[in-house]
Every structure is written in C-alpha cells, then in structure tokens.
C-alpha cells in the first residue's frame, strides 16, 4: 500500500513539473479524460502514434531541407503537420517551436529553417523522454494496484 502512495506522489510531482516547464499543456489532460475503462489504453495509443508520426516527419523535414533546391512550401507543409499533431497531444514546446519554424519557411530562410529543425527535433526527443517516463510511472502505479491521479 505504501508503495502506491509513493508512486502516486512521484507521478503527481513529475507531471506537475512537466506542466510548469511547458512540456505539456492542458490538451494532455483532455486526452487523459477521454481514457476510461472501455478505452484504458487511449493515451498510450495516441502518444505512440505521435512518436511514430514525428520520427517520420523529422526524416521528411531533414531530407526536404537538404535538397539542392529547397521547396519551402513542402517544408512548411511538414511543419504544419507536426504543429498539428504536437498540439493534439499537448506537446506544447514542440508546438511552439513549430510555430516559429513556419515563420522561417514563409521567409524562405534556409538557415533559420535548419536551426529550427534542430530545435524541433530537440524538443521532440525531450518530450518523448518525459512522456515515456510518465507513462512508465502510470504502469507502475496500476501494477501496484493503485489508480493514476488525474491532475486538473
């Protein structure tokens, strides 16, 4: 019993820090609210799709920026997608980086695009790491027989 309490506290502290530091925003809470006994894996499913999608987008972005003649509309298209998906899972810092990235696409600024691709990549891997830790904590709580606290 004690272990559940400890895990729950760890979880609450951790997720609160993620909100505080802007890694996650309220949309993540919305996702959690949509999860229930009939759909106990909803968040994991959505987050997994996000991870997969993002890896692909990052690859597409990298190759589109490396072209001899860069098609900025195409690059912008990818960033727009990335912005959408990160926004849908609540990955706030990734989303914000995408918003800034789009400005460079509009300006056809290759250097800016390059820099921001790196930034978006960085932010993505950061939040991926955080989310994996978070979901692992959830699993541990459930396995120990507890329930995952919902933060509002």
């Amino acid at each position: 019993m004690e272990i559940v309490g400890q895990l729950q506290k760890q979880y609450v502290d951790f997720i609160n820090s993620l909100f505080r530091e802007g890694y996650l925003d309220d949309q993540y809470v919305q996702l959690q609210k949509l999860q229930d006994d009939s759909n106990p894996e909803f968040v994991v499913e959505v987050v997994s799709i996000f991870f997969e999608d993002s890896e692909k987008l990052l690859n597409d972005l990298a190759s589109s920026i490396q072209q001899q003649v860069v098609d900025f509309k195409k690059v912008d298209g990818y960033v727009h997608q990335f912005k959408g998906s990160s926004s849908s899972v609540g990955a706030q810092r990734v989303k914000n980086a995408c918003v800034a990235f789009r400005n460079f696409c509009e300006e056809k600024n290759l250097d800016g695009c390059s820099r921001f691709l790196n930034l978006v990549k960085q932010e993505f891997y950061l939040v991926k790491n955080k989310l994996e830790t978070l979901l692992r904590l959830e699993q541990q709580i459930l396995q120990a027989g507890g329930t995952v606290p919902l933060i509002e």
Partner: protein
Amino acid sequence: MGMTTADSQFHVLAVDDSLIDRKLIERLLKTSSYQVTTVDSGSKALEFLGLNENDRNTPNETSVSPEIHQEVEVNLVITDYCMPGMTGYDLLKKIKESSSLKNIPVVIMSSENIPSRISRCMEEGAEEFFLKPVRLSDVNKLKPHLMRTKCCKNIQNQENQENNQSPEIQLQTAQSNNNNKRKAVDEGISPDRTRPRYNGFTLVSN
C-alpha cells in the same frame, strides 16, 4: 431510409488526414454516444456518402442520381479544413451542392484561427467551426444540429401521412418552394430548416 425513431443513434462521419486527429475525434464522438466512421480524405467521405465526386448535379431538383442512395445514413459530417487534395471547404461545398446530401449538417475543424476562413465556411453552410484541438465542450455543441435534422425527418414523415388534409395550403407552399428552390440551394442554409421540403412538391406533380 426508413423512419428514424428518437432513440436511434446518431451517426457522424469524421474526415481528417491526420491519424492522431482521427483517433481523437473518434474518441470524443464515441464518448458522446455517437456512432462514428472516420475517413482520411474528402473523396473517401463523398464515396461513403454515396456521391460520386464527378457527378454534376442537375439543375432540375426532381431528378436524383440512383448512385446517391446511401447505404448508411449519416447525420452529421465533421471535417478538417486543411487536407491535401480536397479541402474541408471543398467537401462542404460538394455536400451543400448535392440535392441528396445538402441537409446533412457539416462542421469544420481547423488548427488556424483565420476569420476570413471561418466566415467563408459559415457562408457556405457550415453549422460550426471548431478550433483544434477539439474538445468535449465543442462536441457537445453538435447535439442541437443533430436533433434538428431528426426533428425535420419526423415532421416530414408525419406530413406524408396527413397529406390529404389541406391540399390548398400544400399547393401554395409547393409553388413558393418551387420558386425558391434554386435560391435555397445556392444559399446553402435553407431558411425553412424546420419545414418539410419536397412534400408539397410531390403533391403538385400529381
């Protein structure tokens, strides 16, 4: 399409090229007890609705293409705006221009808050415009639009049964409907939403 009772579930068709967003909207809709079908493009949506996207709609309202007979009834279409190929706006237009589909309420979703985009969609007949990410509070706004179409169908069914009662009034309605027919189509949103359509029309052609 048989008579729909008040108890039967509403069926929503959700259109979005993003897998994550399809998952999200599906969950949101199912949480609200709607039956959901998701597709990833406007053309697939039209296919599902039973409309060949290459069909030209004839100006004569009474002729209906046999292909338009829907297998599955759709009570509302919710679509993303930004999609490759056919945009949500294009899809909205096609639906509103179709004699068989124009009564289906359409809702647009978009990640971008662009006032001109929003008004364009509303002018074309969209019921609502949701900013993404879509939330439960948005989905709750769909109910009245769905209820209205059910209500319309029920009234239409009742009128069908009572069509012997006041032929003169029916005739007048039919004639005014006749004149306004093309206008109503062009406007997208018909002003007589709650009044039955085509009823008096079929009476007159007797």
